[in-house]
């Protein structure tokens, strides 16, 4: 019984927050900027509350982080001179052209 009441209260709070907080569309640029700079206290609070009630935005932010990490991983591999995408090669014509330019 108490459990049921508690759930109802949580639900009401979440509903209230979702209605009052900035919308998902407004949060999207903020989530992107959270990867670029330290958000203001106000922005951090709004984002935290929004993420508490909106799992879609949790995934949105998570997706952005996954993209960043995959790209950073690629950058790091190339930095370490490892081959990525080794199927891509200079064409014979380009190779020949560069060879001639270097010989000049």
């Amino acid at each position, binding site marked *: 019984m108490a459990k049921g009441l508690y759930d109802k209260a949580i639900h009401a709070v979440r509903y209230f927050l979702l209605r009052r907080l900035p919308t998902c569309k407004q949060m999207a640029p903020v989530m*992107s900027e959270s990867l670029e700079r330290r958000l203001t206290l106000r922005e951090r609070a709004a984002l935290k509350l929004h993420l508490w009630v909106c799992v879609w935005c949790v*995934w949105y932010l998570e997706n952005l982080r996954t993209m960043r990490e995959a790209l950073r*991983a690629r*950058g790091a591999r190339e930095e370490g*001179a490892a081959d*990525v995408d080794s199927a*891509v090669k200079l064409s014979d014509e*380009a190779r020949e052209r560069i060879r001639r330019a270097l010989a000049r």
Partner: protein
Amino acid sequence: MATSQVASTNPAADPSLWLERHGDYLYRYALFRLRDGSAAEDAVQETLLAALQAYRDFAGRGSERTWLTGILKHKIVDHFRRASRQKPASQLGEESFEHPELFRDEGQWVEHWRPERAPVDWKADPARLCEQTEFWEVFRECLSPLPERVASAFLLREVDGLDSAEICEVFQITTNNLWVMLHRARAHLRRCLELNWFRPGLLKR
């Protein structure tokens, strides 16, 4: 004596072998960032020519490939700088990359995600993604509709980890411009990858 020592401690430092040993690697590196085959070929050529001239400075210190990559990096940034000076960016239609159609446009939940188009849990491991050639093919295609400047700024930021000040200087933009561009690039790529890589089954929606 000094010369032969260099040659013997670092037998790799031989300009005549650069193209053969590192040509494809440098080309791939440039192509991913410039997204244009002939611009990438030019960057490789410029890099090797510059390397030839600066050869004595290198003198076998460190890895030859790392040294060449360092030169290539500058050539790529130079390319972006030239390009942004030559054609000033137009802002027309760039908002469409924020995909407003993913949000409800009316009712009580206006501007919240449409449930059937909302983000999903990718359950992805970035390290594994990085190793999948097919992922990078899809990524390249998703990147292609973005305005050149937006895609270039995004790659400099995410792949090479340049800081905002450097990127703003290259493209002659303000930090706020940059944040808007990065947001658009991310919003578009996220949606495109979700449809075409993470859950192709939902393409029809």
